């Protein structure tokens, strides 16, 4: 019967749309609940605070999305963040005597360069020597952290330039209107650029192709090694950027910054629906995943739930997200 068929098609379509929107729906439900359960959740001030808190993890997660899309993983994000942060801090600090104080903009560029170089080393070794990403970045996790300790002698770098601190603590104020904190602006800008790169440029298509099937990508003439190299370099750059923002926000270059940040970044990407085997997953999902984790952390704080529950929650959400993925792919089979 045509009516039945079309209605079934309708319901399938509806289910597909529901499936696509699952993270957004979860996020909306949580937000609705939190705004009813607490007084302060639905205030501009709090929402902006949440965004500011997630911007660091957000930057890491964007890079992580690129890498997981190619089927790899980056465990060294926290360490690269710390290294980029302390390099920048050392050049804008009046207390760190080994290097001269320079213009904050140049200092930031140097920090970003440092992170990019570390990421590029990851990419080079993974693409040229074919070391498994897990192991290479596990090694880089130790090496970059070690370099951070060596560079700072294990001491925090303080007494930073006042204009530099603006990038972490100040607000973006076009025409005198206080709009958004700088970290949020930078995060959203980075996200927009990443979206364009991933969906409006050849490079993005290649990233998906490499993750989907590296062999057929190679045979279709894609320079697989170059794509792999690039995604790790991009991740290194974004980690250093996150490190700069974190340094400016905390007013100090901390050598122990970013320990175990890789877990939150991976969690955000997985919650966002990106498949760990590569080649599948929306970038917008990562944005939602990042915000979801931030909202849960801040919401549970406001409900004065102990931070241990938050841990259980985060773990359950990750398992739940991966399980949903399993059921979905089971349906396709």
């Amino acid at each position, binding site marked *: 019967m045509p009516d039945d068929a079309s209605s079934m098609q309708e319901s399938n379509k509806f289910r597909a749309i529901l499936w696509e929107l699952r993270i957004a729906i979860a996020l909306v439900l949580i937000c609705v609940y939190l705004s009813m359960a607490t007084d302060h959740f639905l205030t501009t001030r709090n929402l902006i605070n949440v965004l500011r808190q997630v911007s660091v993890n957000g930057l890491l997660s964007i890079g992580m999305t690129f890498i997981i899309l190619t089927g790899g993983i980056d465990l060294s994000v926290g360490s690269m963040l710390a290294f980029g942060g302390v390099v920048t801090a050392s050049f804008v600090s009046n207390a760190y005597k080994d290097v001269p104080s320079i213009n904050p903009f140049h200092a930031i560029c140097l920090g970003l360069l440092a992170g990019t170089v570390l990421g590029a080393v990851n990419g080079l070794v993974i693409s040229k*020597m*074919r070391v498994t*990403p897990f192991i290479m970045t*596990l*090694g*880089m996790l130790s090496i970059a952290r*070690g370099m951070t*300790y*060596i560079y700072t002698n294990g001491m925090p770098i303080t007494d930073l330039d006042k204009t530099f601190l603006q990038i972490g603590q100040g607000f973006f104020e076009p025409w005198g209107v206080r709009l958004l904190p700088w970290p949020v602006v930078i995060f959203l800008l980075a996200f927009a650029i990443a979206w364009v790169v991933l969906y409006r440029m050849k490079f993005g298509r290649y990233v998906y192709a490499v993750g989907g099937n590296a062999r057929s990508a190679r045979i279709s003439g894609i320079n697989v090694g170059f794509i792999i190299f690039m995604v790790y370099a991009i991740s290194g750059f974004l980690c250093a950027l996150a490190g700069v923002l974190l340094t400016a926000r905390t007013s100090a270059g901390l050598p122990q910054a970013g320990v175990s940040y890789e877990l939150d970044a991976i969690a955000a990407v997985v919650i966002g629906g990106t498949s760990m085997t590569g080649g599948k997953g929306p970038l917008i999902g990562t944005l939602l995943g990042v915000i979801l984790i931030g909202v849960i952390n801040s919401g549970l704080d406001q409900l004065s739930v102990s931070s*241990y529950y938050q841990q259980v929650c985060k773990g359950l959400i990750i398992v739940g997200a991966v399980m949903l993925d399993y059921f979905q792919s089971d349906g396709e089979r």
Partner: protein
Amino acid sequence: MLSRLKEWFTTGNITVRIMTVVLIAYCVLVGLVNPTFFSLEIFLDFVRNGAGQAVVAMGVLVVMISGGIDVSFLAIAISSSYISTVLCTTHGWAKPKTFLSLLVVMGISCLVGVLLGCVNGLVIYFFKLPTFITTLATQSIFHGALATFVGTKPVTASRMPRSVIEFGSGAIFEFTSETGSWYGLSYFAIPVVFAVGLTWFILYGTVFGRRIFALGSNALAAKRCGVNIFAAQMFVFAYAGFLAGVMGIIYAADLRWVNPITMVGDELIVIAAVLIGGAKLSGGSGSVLGTLLGMAMIVILRSTLVLLGISSSWNDFFIGAVILVSVAVSAWRSRQESKAALRFDYV
């Protein structure tokens, strides 16, 4: 004797051979720079420092051979040791300072470890989930659940079972050094020998061990050959949990303090040791001896850089470098082996 050594050296596992040479060369270097290195006291100290991680590395090795990875063992170790010590102190089960009471504490800890390991195994088997993500998630679930449902109050030395304290401070045999202080082979050597022996027996002495290798090499082929995938997968995670339970008590005895909030130790170091020892993330390979050597290398490196006059800030850097060099060497070797074949396995 010499000819047998030579024979072993020309036919043995290449990773193990390279590592033995590197380890000996490094020890000689440290000894030349700082002669105090060649003392029994320092060697016995290595055994004590590396014991907990060496025990759990055996469990991780078995998981990795089966083609998975377990990053939740630290949370399991803390959960099991905390639950065990709290149970024993509140019920007074482990009052006497005897071997039996230590066994009770250890047994409960291992039981909790096995249960948590089974949770990992069940979730991974029934939902066919990637092991890394799953154990990452269960790590935070176990740890959070421990703090939420069991408690957050640390067990201090005064409340801890006497047998555990004795386990941590006693020695199998003791010496008195020239300066009058005493040192000896810690009791921790016993669980290490036990774990290594048991793992060796399971992997190389039983059919089940062969099945674990088969599962890691090619799960589908193993299934077609009649390997019970469920049993094998459950076993590897339960075994890792079991050894994590042992490690938890070793840590408790070493630190005389069980704090359910902070995670002491570094799970990535253990995974690094197993990888350095020749295990592959793709599964199907790895050796007990290699893992032990990998652990020894990391423990020795970590505690001897100071003897070489290098600041401890360099620790992390060197450990990372060792991981990379060892993996790069084995990657280069496998590339040489398959140079003829066109390979595109970048990821």
